[in-house]
């Protein structure tokens, strides 16, 4: 019997090469892609509980006086992320078949498959070298994925790439430092040795953790690396953006849960409040991330950029949840990770459907699409209700858990940040709803059709999924708790309907909320149905204070409020945002490097300097031999 683990990483890889050959047959290629992701989902499903499944290869490279072994192992945490990532990928893949038609084909299936290969590798890596290798593969392939052979996306991808490379460099440094400590690349051993290091050399241990943290923060876009998603998400292929937002933003989270969390929990670190100092830093970073993500999302006019920042904000929630170091918080964070996968795939897929039909990303140029694409609208609506954390949909329970955990750890100001962010979420979520789906339908979109069937199917599935998880949080909470039990935490098996918190008398029956909501809906419907009928009028038939748009020198089409939706808000925050724009700093830094680069290049073209430089070199050697 062929090794399951090996097959899981080989099949995407082989398919990647296969698809390269038949790249022009886009239907076949993307169907193959769907098949692979379906296969992975199925295999992962069967792998649940088989925690002794491993695969390893000896490389014949000696390190620490023993042969280097790369190994993959099935583990609860990795399985958890990998499984839900695969399911999400499968749904996106179904969407991709329809999306990548003659006009929209991005020809990226092979790279995406490599990305999936790296995805499995990251989640199941048993040693740091495997982890690092897969991490690099992921970074590089996602660069090509985002750039996808177009010029403007390539610029955005360059920004992403530079940050990725910073991340991989620090990760490598961290891995080698920690591996030197534990004399092995094994992840669990390195956790133990870092915990021991905290007892002897606190600062060094923090430095090592910091090296890892920078990498994870970059990949998950935690402050101060919150800028890249808005560029990368916006410019990547529209059907890839959901993957980027749902799956790829979780790598950093996975890394934190896998590596940083056990250390912070078990190491002997002086406490600060109910948690410890590094955890507090984590919490504050999470809080800043979500607040900044929210504010920047409110500023945005491009809908993909807006949701990129929304993803950033959500990552902030997850990080806050993790930083509590409590079981409730970790539950909430893991739960929210999955919820975020579902929600963002719903939102980005519906946006992709809109872009597929209209080819437009700027929100104020759209409008009224709900009347032409009702299903897409419903998917988006349920998506934002979830994203805003409104019951009875799925985003609520996880947010609730995180808030409860933060409150029970007395992290009050972090809670306030979280509340700010999730209230701010209404603003930007509604903004897209109002500008894209509601309001006046422009004339050129009068004849737009609903998204094709193959797109509608995955969107509907995701919609139902959101509802199902919202009503029965146990669908996710049961695996979450199984994972936590597998990781050695002391938790009970989750119930289907109820989520627990640390406070007294605050076990929340989520299913009941759904019932109550339905009851409320019934009562409201009664009022609605027993009132007099209404007549339908055209969309231009509006109250205009007795004047026509032409009276103001405008056209009916522009009789719409959607550009500069939150102008007053923007004016309030603009000065502050300008000040802390990491984007600008990085651009300035890039400019400096470019200038130095040009200067050096000129130095190399000037020939009269050659001999002089030779003498300078001799001088360096002489001075060096003398002084250093």
């Amino acid at each position: 019997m062929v090794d399951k683990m090996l097959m899981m990483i080989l099949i995407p890889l082989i398919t990647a090469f296969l698809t390269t050959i038949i790249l022009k047959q886009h239907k076949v290629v993307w169907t193959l892609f769907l098949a692979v992701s379906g296969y992975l989902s199925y295999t992962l499903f069967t792998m649940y509980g088989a925690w002794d499944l491993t695969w390893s290869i000896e490389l014949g490279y000696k390190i620490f006086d023993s042969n280097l072994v790369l190994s993959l192992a099935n583990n609860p945490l990795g399985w958890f992320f990998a499984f839900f990532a695969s399911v999400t990928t499968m749904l996106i893949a179904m969407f991709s078949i329809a999306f990548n038609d003659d006009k929209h084909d991005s020809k990226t299936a092979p790279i995406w498959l490599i990305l999936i290969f790296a995805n499995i590798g990251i989640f199941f890596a048993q040693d740091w070298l495997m982890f690092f290798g897969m991490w690099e593969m992921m970074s590089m392939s996602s660069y090509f994925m985002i750039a996808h052979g177009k010029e403007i996306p390539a610029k955005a991808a360059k920004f992403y790439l530079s940050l990725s490379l910073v991340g991989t460099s620090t990760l490598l440094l961290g891995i080698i430092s920690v591996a030197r400590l534990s004399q092995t690349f094994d992840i669990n051993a390195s956790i133990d040795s870092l915990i021991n290091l905290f007892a002897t050399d606190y600062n060094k241990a923090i430095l090592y953790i910091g090296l890892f943290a920078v990498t994870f923060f970059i990949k998950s876009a935690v402050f101060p690396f919150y800028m890249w998603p808005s560029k990368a998400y916006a410019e990547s292929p529209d059907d890839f953006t959901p993957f980027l937002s749902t799956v790829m933003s979780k790598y950093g989270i996975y890394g934190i849960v896998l590596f940083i969390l056990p250390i912070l929990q078990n190491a002997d670190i002086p406490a600060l409040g109910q948690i410890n100092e590094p955890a507090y830093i984590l919490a504050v970073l999470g809080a800043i991330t979500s607040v900044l993500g929210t504010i920047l999302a409110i500023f945005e006019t491009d809908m993909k950029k807006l949701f990129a920042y929304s993803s950033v904000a959500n990552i902030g929630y997850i990080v806050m949840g993790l930083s509590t170091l409590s079981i409730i918080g970790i539950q909430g964070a893991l739960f929210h990770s999955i919820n975020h996968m579902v929600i963002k795939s719903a939102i980005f897929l519906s946006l992709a459907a809109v872009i597929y039909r209209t080819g437009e990303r700027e929100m104020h140029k759209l409008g009224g699409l709900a009347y032409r694409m009702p299903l897409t609208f419903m998917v988006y609506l349920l998506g934002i209700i979830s994203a805003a954390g409104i019951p009875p949909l799925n985003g609520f329970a996880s947010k609730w858990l995180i808030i409860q955990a933060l409150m029970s750890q007395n992290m009050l100001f972090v809670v306030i940040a979280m509340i700010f962010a999730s209230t701010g979420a209404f603003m930007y979520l509604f903004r897209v709803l109002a500008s894209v789906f509601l309001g006046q339908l422009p004339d050129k979109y009068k004849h737009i059709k609903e998204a094709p069937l193959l797109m509608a199917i995955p969107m509907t599935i995701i919609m139902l999924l959101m509802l199902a998880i919202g009503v029965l949080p146990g669908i996710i909470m049961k695996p979450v708790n199984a994972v936590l039990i597998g990781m050695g935490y002391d938790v009970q098996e989750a119930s289907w309907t109820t989520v627990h918190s640390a406070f007294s008398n605050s076990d929340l029956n989520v299913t009941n909320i759904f019932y109550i909501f339905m009851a409320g809906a019934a009562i409201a419907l009664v009022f609605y149905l027993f009132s007099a009928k209404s007549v339908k009028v055209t969309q231009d038939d509006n109250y205009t204070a007795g004047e026509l748009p032409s009276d103001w020198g405008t056209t009916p089409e522009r009789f719409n409020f959607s550009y500069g939706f939150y102008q007053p808000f923007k004016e309030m925050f603009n000065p502050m945002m300008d000040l802390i724009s990491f984007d600008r700093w990085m651009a300035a830094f890039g400019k400096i490097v470019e200038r130095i680069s040009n200067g050096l290049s000129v130095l190399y073209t000037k020939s009269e300097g050659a001999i002089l430089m030779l003498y300078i070199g001799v001088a360096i050697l002489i001075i060096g031999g003398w002084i250093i």
Partner: protein
Amino acid sequence: MMTVFNIILYSLFAILVGLIFLGIGRKVAARVHLRYGPPFYQSIIDVIKLMSRESITHNFVMDLGMVMALTGLIGTMLYIPIAGHIAFESNTNIIVIMYLMAIGHLGMAMAVSASGNPYANIGVSRALTMMLGYEVPFFTVMLGLIIYNQSSSVMVINLAQAGSIWNWNIWQMPIGFIAAEMALQAMMGEKPFDAMIAPAEIASGPMVELSGRYLGLGFLTKAVGVFVETALIVNFFFGGGTSVITFVIKQLEVFLIAVIFDNIFPRYKIEQAVKFLWIFPMGLAVIQLILLAI
């Protein structure tokens, strides 16, 4: 079966009380203006009238949104204990209440936005900005309560104030109460925080395209909203109530304070309002929180 009956009863009660509050509010406002004012049941008559008139709709989203708005607020109301009674067995979690309330706002916003009228959109944009302004201080105050009682259940907070009048949280945390009152003013959309409605400026904002049944549903939503918001304050700071009557009277008291302030203040611009909310109520709430944490 009992639960279903309870739910219907509570909903109708809330709607009725809310509508009467609105009527009393109008009456009081008139008296402040030195007018006679309509009868206190005028709002009920208005709703019946509106419901029975023909109305115009732009598309299905309007219907969906208005129903969603009322749904959300009724759902919220069912989570709030009224004088220690609740419609069904729940732990009356504050966060659930806050988030459920949001669905009402979302539905309302969606409905009016679907009308395609720019005034409505401007109103919604202002309302959502304002929401960010008041939710944060309001929640900060609640956070203090939660930390104080080590529970996020309204019921628990309510019960903790039982007994003497001096157990009320208004005495325990007066600074927080003032902050909550200011936030409440904005939450109910009363002056000086009514930039989102601003009849003279943006033609009543969100309501501009509503007529007939939609405006009726809007009225009901508003009524339930008033009920919910005042009930929250009463539960948090006035020790709930021993009976439904005292509870409603306390609610009325809270409501009337808001109405009187509404009538003696001019209107803030939206950014001024948000700044105000983030400086004064927020500052007070934070001070309260720090005091509690120490």
